[in-house]
C-alpha cells in the first residue's frame, strides 16, 4: 500500500487538431485504492479509461503503471466495458477462458483458474450456457470473472452496472468490494451514478468542461463497508459530489 500503482501525467487527447476531448489530466491511484470518475455524458470519461488501458494512445502525456509507461494493453490491467463485451457465441466457459487462451496460458492452468473463478462468483452450473440465456446480474458476474481470471492488479470499469436494476446493482457493488479487498485490486470505475461513485470510490474525481479536465477531487475516507450506503457520511459525500457535478 502507499506506492503509486497507476499514474496519469498530463494526458491530452485530440481526435483532430480542432477536437480536443481531454486536456492535461494528471492524477494517480495508490495500490489497492479505488478511484471513481464521474462527469457528464460525452465528456471523454470512456476515452480516458481507454487511454489508461492502453487501448488508445494519448496525443500527449503518458500513463504509468508502477512507474513503467503504458504503450499497449497490459497483463496487469483487466477491463470491463459498458454492456460487458462478452462474446455471444461463446459459452460461460469459453468467455472465461478467452483471455487465457489469448495469453497462451497452459490448458491445465486455464481449467484450474476457470473452475476456481466460476465457483468464486457463484456461476457453477452455467458453464455451458450462452450469455444470452443469463440474467443481467449473472452476465455482469461473468464479465467480472473474465477480467479477474487474468489475475490483474488493476481493474478498469466503464459504467459496469448501468444496465442493472437497483438491487442487483447493489449486490454486485458489494461483490466488487469483497473482491477488491481479497485480491488487493486497484480500481478505476467510470460511472454516471453519484451514489455508485461514492459507494465504490476512496476518491471521486469529477470531470467536466470542454475540453474535459478535473473539476474536483472529493475525498471519501469512510468508503469501503457494505453498511456505508445508509451511513450519514455517505449522504454527506453524495451531496458534495452533487454540488461539484451541478457546478459544472
Amino acid at each position: 500500500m502507499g506506492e503509486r500503482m497507476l499514474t496519469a501525467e498530463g494526458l491530452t487527447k485530440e481526435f483532430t487538431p480542432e477536437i480536443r476531448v481531454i486536456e492535461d489530466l494528471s492524477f494517480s491511484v495508490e495500490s489497492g485504492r479505488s478511484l471513481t470518475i464521474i462527469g457528464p455524458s460525452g465528456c471523454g470519461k470512456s476515452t480516458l479509461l481507454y487511454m489508461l488501458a492502453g487501448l488508445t494512445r494519448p496525443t500527449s502525456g503518458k500513463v504509468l503503471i508502477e512507474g513503467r509507461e503504458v504503450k499497449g494493453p497490459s497483463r496487469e490491467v483487466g477491463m470491463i466495458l459498458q454492456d460487458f463485451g462478452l462474446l455471444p457465441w461463446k459459452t460461460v466457459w469459453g468467455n472465461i477462458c478467452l483471455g487465457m487462451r489469448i495469453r497462451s496460458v497452459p490448458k491445465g492452468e486455464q481449467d484450474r483458474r476457470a473452475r476456481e473463478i466460476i465457483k468464486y462468483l457463484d456461476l457453477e452450473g452455467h458453464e455451458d450456457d450462452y450469455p444470452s440465456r443469463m440474467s443481467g446480474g449473472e452476465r455482469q458476474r461473468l464479465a467480472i470473472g473474465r477480467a479477474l481470471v487474468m489475475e490483474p492488479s488493476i481493474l478498469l470499469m466503464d459504467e459496469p452496472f448501468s444496465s442493472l436494476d437497483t438491487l442487483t446493482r447493489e449486490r454486485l457493488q458489494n461483490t466488487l468490494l469483497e473482491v477488491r479487498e481479497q485480491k488487493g485490486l486497484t480500481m478505476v470505475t467510470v460511472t454516471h451514478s453519484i451514489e455508485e461513485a461514492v459507494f465504490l470510490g476512496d476518491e471521486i474525481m469529477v470531470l467536466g468542461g470542454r475540453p474535459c479536465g478535473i473539476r474536483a477531487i472529493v475525498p471519501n475516507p469512510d468508503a469501503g463497508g457494505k453498511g456505508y450506503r445508509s451511513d450519514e457520511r455517505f449522504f454527506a459525500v453524495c451531496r458534495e459530489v452533487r454540488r461539484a457535478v451541478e457546478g459544472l
Partner: protein
Amino acid sequence: MNKQRLLGYALSLAACLLAWKVAAVLLNSPVLPGPEETLRAFAAAVGTSTFWSNFAASTFRVLSSIALAWLLAFPLGIMIGYDRKTDRYVSPLIFLTYPIPKMVFLPVMILLFGLGDLSKILLITLVVFFQILVATKEGVSGLDRKYIDSMRSMGASEGDIIREAVIPAALPSCFTALRIITGTSISVLYFAETFAGTSGLGYMITNAWTWGNYTEIYVGILAMSILGIAIYESFTYLERRVCRWTRAAEDDQGEGGSWDKAVNYAHMIKISHTVFALPFGLAALVILSTDHIITLEMVLWIIVAIVGARSAAMGFNRIVDAGIDSRNPRTSGRHIPQGTLSVKQA
C-alpha cells in the same frame, strides 16, 4: 421443435400433392400428369443409371459452385467487413458489378471454358458469389466495437480478433445467404444445363420436353426439387451445429409467439408473393401454347394451382423457418445483446 418440423413437412407435402392432384384432374391434359403417375415414373427412373448419372452431374455442379463461391466470398467478405481500407477500395467495384445480370455471361463462359462442367460451375459461382459476399460483409459490419475493444484489452492480436469475434459474427448471415442461394444456384444450373451439354437434370428436363415426354419433365422437376431441399436442409443442419448460440437466444422466445408471427407472415407474404409468382406460371403457359391449344379454363386452373401450391409452400416455409426468421442476419448481431437485456429485466 423437430416433431413440429416433421409435421410441417408432412402436412405441406400432403397439401402440395392434393393441390397437384386436383389441378391434374381439372386440367385433364397430358401436360400435367397426376402425382401418382409421376411418382410411379419417378420410382422407375430411380432404378436407372441414366437418372443417377444426371442427378450426380447436377449435384456435383451445384455443390462445387457453392463451395467455390463460399471459399472466395467468405474470406473477402470478412476482409471488407472488418478492414475499412480494403472496404474503401474493393466495395465500389463490388457494388458496381453486383447489379449486372450474371446469367447473360453464359455464352462467354461456354466460349471460354467449353461445354463441360467448368463453364456451368463458373456461371453459378459468379451468380451466387456476390450474395454470399454481401451477406458476410453485412454480418461483420454489424459486429459491435465493444467486442473488439474488450478483446484488445486482453491483448488479442488481429488474428485472435478475426478468429474469435469476426468470423463467428459473420456466420449466421452467411448461412442465411447460403440457404437463399440454394434456390438461385439450382435455377442457374437448370439454365446452364438446358443450353450446353448432354448431362444433368436440366438436360434431362429439356430433352423430355423436346420428345413430348411430360411425365419425364416432372420426374426431372421432382429430382431438382429434392436436390434443392436436401442442400437447403443441410445448411440448416450445419448452422444449428455451428451457430449454437443463435438457438440459445431464440429459445427464450415462446413457441406460441413464433407461431403467431409465422401465421401473420404467411398471410402477408402469401398474397404478395403469389401475385408476383403468377406471371412466371403464365409465362410457362405461353411457352406451352406453341404446341398446345390453351383454353380459358386451363388458364383459370393454372392460376388456382399456382395459388394453391404457393400457399401450401409458404405455409411449409413459414413452419420450417419460424426459428430462422427470429434471427434475421442483419438484426441478430444487434438483437442478441438487446434481447438479452429485456429478458434479464423481465
